[in-house]
């Protein structure tokens, strides 16, 4: 039983924390996160140089890490600094590229020369991929895709787009669950770009006879695995952001005086901060469980427990932080408000707390927790 980071992971965390502290303050962040292309090329190459992207793949696939713990160590630091760079898309995209044997493109992504984003999600999809309805059909040597994709994180400005579409959906209604999920690659199709409410880029894609290259005709299992790793990343990001936001809240309560005394001296406020801390510890613990169980029989269960718990905890901490800050917590200028927004909006990514509760319920019978 050992919960401390290994020396290597501690070094990775420290160097990333230092890099972000030196180069990525909240003004830099907000300047990039809300204006097209919703990220900073400079920060992106800085992260690539640090080896952050390469840490998402194992050595035999051209990276220098690749474990769920590598991912969680990195994303906790990204969360602490409220990093809005398109790292999530790179993580999931890289895993799928490597899985499909596209080593050259993977290498380009690792070095920061190319950026990949991922079009899996469709409007109205939670975390169950069965209802995905975008279709792919063979056209000579290539493929043609039809349908609507949404929630393409980091889509704006990406060089390559990985697209999931259903192959061989035998003439049923849209949303039929037969056939397989194919993985396709397209070069910079026209996207419908937007900033996310909490910063960073997001895009939709309307596909009509879109020409694409097929990387895998049956990628369903690989996609589920990559998505679960993305969920772990989001959980770790939330843990980092929660820890930072609680620190900010404690500092603020110590500094702010009302009625001639610091807010920190009021028990009604103290107790609320303690409850936030309890939730943070729980969030950290369930993320540890998900990291430990990634790749095991219990992966889906542990990941969904984590995403469900963190969906609840993140909202609690975000709302309490805004409330405890009072008016200042409502302002765009105060960094804490952006942390709170991120914490609430994380639940909207890769299946929310209710989607994951449903996944847990469907995973019956329960596994023995011991």
């Amino acid at each position: 039983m050992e919960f401390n980071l290994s020396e290597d992971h501690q070094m990775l965390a420290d160097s990333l924390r230092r890099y972000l502290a030196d180069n990525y303050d909240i003004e830099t962040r907000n300047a990039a996160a809300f204006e097209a292309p919703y990220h900073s090329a400079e920060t992106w190459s800085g992260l690539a140089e640090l080896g952050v992207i390469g840490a998402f793949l194992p050595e035999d696939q051209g990276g220098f890490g690749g474990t769920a713990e590598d991912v969680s160590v990195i994303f906790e630091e990204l969360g602490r600094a409220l990093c809005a760079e398109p790292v999530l898309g790179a993580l999931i995209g890289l895993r799928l590229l490597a899985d499909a044997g596209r080593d050259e493109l993977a290498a380009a992504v690792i070095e920061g020369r190319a950026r990949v984003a991922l079009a899996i999600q469709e409007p109205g999809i939670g975390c169950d991929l069965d209802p995905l309805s975008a279709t792919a059909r063979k056209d000579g040597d290539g493929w043609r895709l039809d349908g609507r994709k949404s929630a393409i994180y980091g889509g704006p400005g990406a060089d390559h787009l990985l697209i999931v579409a259903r192959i061989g959906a035998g003439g049923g209604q849209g949303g039929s669950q037969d056939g397989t999920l194919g993985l396709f690659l397209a070069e910079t199709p026209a996207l419908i770009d937007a900033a996310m409410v909490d910063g960073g880029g997001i895009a939709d894609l309307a596909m009509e006879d879109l020409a694409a290259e097929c990387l895998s005709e049956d990628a369903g299992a690989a996609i589920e695995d990559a998505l679960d790793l993305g969920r772990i990343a989001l959980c770790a990001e939330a843990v980092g952001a929660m820890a930072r936001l609680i620190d900010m809240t404690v500092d603020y309560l110590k500094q702010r005086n009302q009625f001639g005394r610091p807010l920190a001296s009021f028990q009604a406020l103290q107790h609320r901060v303690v409850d936030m801390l309890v939730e943070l510890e729980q969030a950290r613990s369930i993320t540890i469980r998900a990291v430990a169980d990634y790749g095991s029989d219990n992966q889906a269960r542990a990941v969904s427990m984590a995403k469900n718990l963190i969906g609840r905890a993140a909202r609690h901490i975000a709302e309490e932080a805004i409330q405890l800050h009072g008016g200042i917590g409502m302002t765009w200028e105060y960094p804490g408000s952006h942390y709170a927004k991120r914490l609430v909006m994380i639940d909207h990514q890769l299946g929310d707390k209710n989607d994951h509760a449903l996944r847990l319920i469907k995973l019956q019978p329960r596994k023995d927790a011991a």
Partner: protein
Amino acid sequence: MDLSFTKEEQAFRDEVRRFLRDNLPREIAAKVSAGKELEKDEILHWQEILNRKGWLATTWPAEHGGPGWTAVERHIFAEESARASAPRMPPFGLNMLGPVLIKFGSDDQKARILPRILDGSDWWCQGYSEPGAGSDLASLKTRAVRDGDHYVVNGQKTWTTLGQHANKIFCLVRTATEGKPQEGISFLLVDLDTPGVEMRPIRLIDGGHEVNEVFFTDARVPVENLVGKENQGWTIAKYLLTHERTNIAGVGFSARDLERYHQLAQELSRDGQPVADHPVYALRAAEIEADLEAMSITNLRMLAQARDGAAGGVESSLLKLKGTQIRQEIQDLYRSALGAQAAPDAEDLSENELTVPVDAARAAPVYFNNRKLSIFGGSNEIQRNIVAKELFRG
């Protein structure tokens, strides 16, 4: 990061499981599982079995008759005992007075008292709280006035758990009224058959007799029953409170109770389907299970900190806070699952008149009884104060 137990720890867990399987009397486990009160004899019977094995005083060092376990081994033992529905040993002699005597007692006190705790000759109860001193324990008023070779004790203690089984009580008493309230408190051992000591039952919300009040009227207590020095009682009390409390999160109890809920939810139906398939119940159970899974990791993280000597002091407060919330949530879920069938008082019905499984018949009283979890042992508000003090320091 590594969540696994060592080979030795796993072997230890297997040994504990085997021991519980072979030695825990079935009828006792059944009563514990159904939330029924145990008779004194039943508790003492299990105590004797544990003592014979050398596994009774889990926190004592080996030289005084403890098993000499690590914090991790104590955790494993507590977890397995809870899962097997073993009776929870009353902590007053074993986990409270024992460690206090080992740290502060005279050689004579250790030799005289510790063996009698182990073999069940003495049943100790705790005289801390008073009608006017609950969370604010330092305001206690029970006086002990020196008179020759005796202290003369006058006052009242309350919330004395299982005092009806006890023959001894350890008390915090006021021996000085000057200075800070904390500085005039002493730790005194009293025979309950001393003239002037009277115990009366308090009936609790669930109708049960679990706690008592104890009255002292000119009770004469020999001075050799003072533990430590006069007016050192607060230090001793604090030591006792911060002394490592194994299983304060109650993860094992929660795991067992959630297991029982899942069984019950299969057996009971609601609107023509098993409660287990009721979407709202399924959602609630799934979220509680996630909370409990996180709690069990939080517990292990803090255990590892204690093992590495890195525990900062607020850990046990955090564990108590969330651990009791989860336990109470599960009790509520369990009671709710019974629907309208939770209402009849099982005491008035025989087993074949019940419309619910025997184990579930006392769900509502057990739920009410367990509201105590967030009140005793330092209420959850006191735990928040402790954490806040650390959080807002400086």
